[in-house]
């Protein structure tokens, strides 16, 4: 669930060294794989891999529902996957062609089954949480040493936000993640589909609206890293990227990621095969390649997101497997919540509320 407007139009097409008639077209999130893996796949299978990237679930879903996308493998997030399965956009996987599927992790499979019953249509690629990215030094300077950097109160309590406004706060421009967080903060069910409950989120945002610099889902990576902003509600791996960039730049900025102690949202990006995929066989080969423990470990070691592959865990570097921001401990894990997709009427209420929160109309 990554969002990079900058790379919205970036298209990466790899031309195989081996001239081959067979090709597989993969459509994945931007900055979401170790590119060496793409070359490796082509060398191992001799299949030409055409790898395109997108930056929002909405764009992917529109392509899926319009039909005829031409892709063999796509990577929607769980809630979107569920809706697209009901629309008939995907085909069931043939597990005979996926011998590596045994590597999958039951903890993740149990949770993804709520989007894809029986995990019949998809395999997990990566998963993560939506939490708080904080410039530790600046926030402690403004709020004191006991600043609630692991609590939603940091961004939803006007008393805190009033002080943080001067150093810059970004929230995700993603209503399906921000509204559940606000509901969680006031003790309502974050997965509520009741318009009356959802409406309660409005007051939470309006109280802190004047102190929010921007609603954006990608600029916070740079913003946090170079110290332009000090707090962002963001996706785990993205905040960790910001942390590493700041460390590389050695600019005195220390970034930390924390899931909210009230409970953070957990999401799953799933690989699936469109119903009209031109090369179903090649798509399975790609999925099986991704399910390989070593390949999946390479991907996670590169992008700093947790994956749904149990066997890969032994091959992960300590920076990834040992970081509770990526692989949360059991207490945090039990505290995470998941959401289910809104139906069209409720989706309209949510989008409308979000427009109102952002623009005041």
């Amino acid at each position, binding site marked *: 669930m990554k969002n990079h407007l900058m790379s919205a139009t970036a298209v990466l097409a790899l031309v195989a060294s081996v001239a081959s008639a067979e090709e597989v077209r993969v459509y994945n999130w931007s900055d979401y794989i170790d590119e060496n893996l793409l070359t490796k796949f082509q060398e191992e299978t001799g299949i030409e891999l055409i790898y395109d990237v997108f930056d929002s679930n*909405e764009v992917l879903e529109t392509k899926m*529902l319009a039909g005829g996308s031409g892709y063999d493998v796509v990577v929607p997030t769980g809630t979107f996957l569920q809706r697209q399965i009901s629309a*008939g956009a995907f085909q069931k996987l043939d597990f005979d062609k996926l011998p590596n599927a045994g590597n999958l992790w039951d903890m993740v499979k149990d949770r993804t089954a709520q989007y894809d019953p029986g995990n019949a249509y998809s395999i997990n690629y990566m998963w993560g949480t939506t939490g708080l990215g904080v410039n530790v030094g600046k926030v402690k300077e403004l709020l004191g040493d006991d600043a609630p950097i692991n609590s939603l109160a940091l961004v939803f309590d006007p008393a805190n936000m009033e002080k943080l406004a001067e150093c810059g706060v970004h929230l995700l421009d993603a*209503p399906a993640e921000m509204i559940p967080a606000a509901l969680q903060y006031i003790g309502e069910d974050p997965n509520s589909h009741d318009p009356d409950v959802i409406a309660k989120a409005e007051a939470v945002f309006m109280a802190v609206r004047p102190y929010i610099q921007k609603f954006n889902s990608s600029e916070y990576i740079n913003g946090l890293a170079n110290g332009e902003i000090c707090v962002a509600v963001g996706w785990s791996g993205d905040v960790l990227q910001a942390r590493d960039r700041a460390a590389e730049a050695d600019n005195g900025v220390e970034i930390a990621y924390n899931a909210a102690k009230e409970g953070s949202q957990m999401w799953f990006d799933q690989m699936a095969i469109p119903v009209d995929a031109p090369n179903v066989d090649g798509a399975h080969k790609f999925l099986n390649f991704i399910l390989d423990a070593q390949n999946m470990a390479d991907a996670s070691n590169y992008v700093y997101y947790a994956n749904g592959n149990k066997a890969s865990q032994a091959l992960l570097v300590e920076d990834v497997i040992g970081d509770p921001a990526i692989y949360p401990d059991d207490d945090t894990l039990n505290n995470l919540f998941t959401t289910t997709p809104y139906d069209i009427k409720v989706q*309209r209420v949510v989008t409308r509320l979000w*427009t109102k929160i952002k*623009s005041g*109309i």
Partner: protein
Amino acid sequence: MKRFTLIFIPYIWLAALFLVPFLIVVKISLSDTALAIPPYKPALDLAQGWAGLMAFLGDLDFENFTFLAEDDLYWKAYLSSLKIATISTILTLLIGYPIAYSMTRAAEEWRPTLLMLIILPFWTSFLIRVYSWMGILGQEGLLNQLLLWLHVISEPLKIMNTPTAVYIGIVYTYLPFLVLPIYAALDKLDDNLLEAAEDLGCSRFKAFWLVTIPLSMNGIVAGCFLVFIPALGEFVIPSLLGGSQTLMIGKVLWEEFFSNRDWPVASAVAVILLLILIIPIILFQRNQQKQRESEG
């Protein structure tokens, strides 16, 4: 026969590339959303013949249009787009007319070069040019750094993510579309007319006002339409340069289509946008025709 063919070809072109797509959009705007591929219903089943067609037509309704009327978001977005498009058109005209005018006053051998300079920006992708404005207008951008360095300002100006940035982006992007038709009109202007006006006692300013402006009116009108029409439905510029408070119908349309996944309502928004554009165009054409008739 020859004449008939000549007229016929552009009409086929219009029908295939404008009328048919528009009718498809109208049809979707009268449908209901559905969780399917494509995400709306009813679908026209030609196999069932006449009965199928009647059933299909019976399922269409104007529900989406009544919905648009009920929520003030939509008319506010239309109004705000109209305001932004109008102001940017006026700004573009104020900047573009003097440019076109001075180009026609320039020495003959310079004109091709000047014309080339107007067209040159098109050699770079539109998207990249808008992105580069983000680098110029940003908090740490070139403009602020220059002004700070010159001690004109002591704190960086906030231009990015405001309506000002949207105006700058639109005026910059569409300026060539306005300069070129005005230049073409002014280029044809007979200098003897201006001399005659001065001989008959007009001041230079009055001659400009009474002769040059009316004779370049066609270019002005054409240029203004070329700016106004795309600016009204503009999506890229407000979403990259504007903030969340910049409400434009292009963004609302995007949200209907992508966030709400409601193709029928998105189509209804688009149909109304087209009607808003078509009415002034038809009025303008009628006016032109009347003028021609009264002159003839």
